């Protein structure tokens, strides 16, 4: 009896870890292959291998020396950072109103905000293009910041509103009794309590802005204003018939690494932030 039981237990464990391995391999493999390819050069590129065979930094050198990739990287950093700051500022103030101030049509407004995020990008592309042209910010980073902020806000507002709603009302009332204005309550009382939620939403907004392609392709035309996803897609090789896989992969790795580092730094905060915003306690 004992032996069969142990075998069954062992089988279950083996199956469990086998499944884990499958999931990890499937999700990590594309990125792994990109890294592998980025270290290859010449005709090596077209030989399929699954283990590192060469370690050439030639592709990385090319990425940073040819074209305007460093400039694109700075553009991306600027656009994504400013989007996060702007979106968080607007979302924190908006969610204070939506969770704490009683006014008519509050629920409707929240639903509308959510509905905005249901439109596919392509549906609003033409309209947004007109707005951006009208504002005179076409082909500048501001066009992207403007568009990304619009698309990040529904999500940030929703998460922060749920989070703020769970903060005890007495703390706010104690602050009112202490003579705090709404601005002081937001910045000095609520924000410190909301770090996990702010970090989580901020990071997700950053990733969304960093990786966005369609708007970036549409609202910028020159190499000087492009962000990295577009720049990578438009990387060209020595001739019309050559796709520079090595450089593309190197560029992709360079672009992804900062995100991975950011996520690792804020990992703990993200986990507590996601649960804290969603469920009580």
């Amino acid at each position, binding site marked *: 009896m004992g032996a069969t039981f142990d075998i069954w237990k062992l089988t279950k464990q083996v199956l469990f870890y086998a499944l884990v391995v499958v999931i990890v391999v499937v999700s990590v493999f594309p990125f792994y292959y990109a890294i592998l390819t980025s270290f290859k050069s010449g005709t090596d590129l077209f030989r399929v291998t699954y283990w590192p065979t060469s370690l050439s930094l030639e592709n990385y050198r090319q990425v940073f020396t040819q074209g305007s990739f460093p400039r694109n990287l700075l553009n991306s950093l600027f656009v994504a950072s400013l989007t996060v700051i702007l979106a968080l500022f607007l979302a924190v103030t908006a969610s204070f109103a939506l969770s704490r101030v009683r006014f008519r049509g509050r629920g409707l407004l929240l639903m509308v905000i959510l509905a905005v995020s249901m439109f596919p990008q392509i549906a609003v592309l033409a309209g947004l293009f007109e707005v951006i042209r009208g504002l005179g910010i076409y082909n500048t980073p501001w066009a992207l910041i403007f568009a990304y902020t619009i698309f990040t806000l529904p999500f940030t507002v929703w998460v922060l509103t749920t989070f703020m709603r769970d903060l*005890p009302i*007495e703390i706010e009332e*104690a*602050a*009112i*009794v*202490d003579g705090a204005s709404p601005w*002081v309550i937001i910045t*000095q009382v609520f924000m410190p*309590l909301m770090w996990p939620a702010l970090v989580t939403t901020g990071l997700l907004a950053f990733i969304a802005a960093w990786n966005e392609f369609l708007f970036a392709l549409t609202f910028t035309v020159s190499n000087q204003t492009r962000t990295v996803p577009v720049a990578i897609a438009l990387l060209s090789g020595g001739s019309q018939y050559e796709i520079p896989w090595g450089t593309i992969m190197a560029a992709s790795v360079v672009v992804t690494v900062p995100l991975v580092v950011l996520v690792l730094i804020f990992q703990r905060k993200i986990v507590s932030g996601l649960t804290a915003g969603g469920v009580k306690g």
Partner: protein
Amino acid sequence: MASIELRNLRKSFGAVEVIKGVDLEVRKGEFMVFVGPSGCGKSTLLRLISGLEDITSGEMLFDGKVVNSLTPSKRGIAMVFQSYALYPHMTVYQNMAFGLKLEKGHSKDEIRQRVEKAADMLQIRQYLDRLPKQLSGGQRQRVAIGRAITRDPKVFLFDEPLSNLDAALRVATRIEIAKLHADMHEVTMIYVTHDQVEAMTLADRICVLRDGLVEQVGTPMELYERPDSMFVAGFIGSPKMNFISGKFAEPFGCETVGVRGEHMIINEGPGRWTGKVIHNENLGADSYIYVDIGSEEPVVVRLEGANTYKSGDSVNLSPMDDKIHRFDKAGKPIR
């Protein structure tokens, strides 16, 4: 330092009227306690005085000046909440100094002095660098009281501050609040509770509320000895006053007769009423025996010290004739 006057004060939440026209005067330096069953509007009344809720109609005056539309800090109030409501991310010191920092015009040294003075009063000086989560419930409530003291308010408001504490701590903190009132005798204090022991022990005057209206205002002894209604008579005093009606009340010439447990005597010989003991609670210093005399509810008799009555024992009992309360049909006293 402030007298408070409420004139026909009303408060509605949507269609529901919670405060239905309250007239009340709280004197300078007085300790006023609002008591009443849950839902009577006592907390709402306190929040109206604090300024956290808007007044629907009526007038509120502090020192003769209308304050209806003033913010809490402009009214010069400080409040202690049931759930402590400390700022979780600030140390005890920062919690206590927060109000003063927002109120411009205090130097750093002055703030430190005032925080330390308040901390000394409450013996929490050794906790000034800790975060609220590192403190016990009683310590947290002391910090909350300290935060209120530091701001040197004209009016001190307490919203059931002891409800979250365990029994032993509740008594200790109650004594501390009484001491605080003695030390700060010029500050007007208003205290909300549903616990009539807290009301009796702390109050200069008690205001009994019922369904959004003032039922009676008076000193604890006035309410105990001369209740203006059956409701007040039943609410003040522990154990609850015995109300005996029907044929038992007829000899007294009233609808209902009220006798407190401590005003019942067990007679050796024949008494006014006879009944069987149905339950006996020995508390050591005193004891309550429940006697079924045939009235609607059993009669509670409070005896000094422990006793040996058992369920089923037959006893004769009588009320002290000069301590009975007679009530008419409407529940009003006949004097």
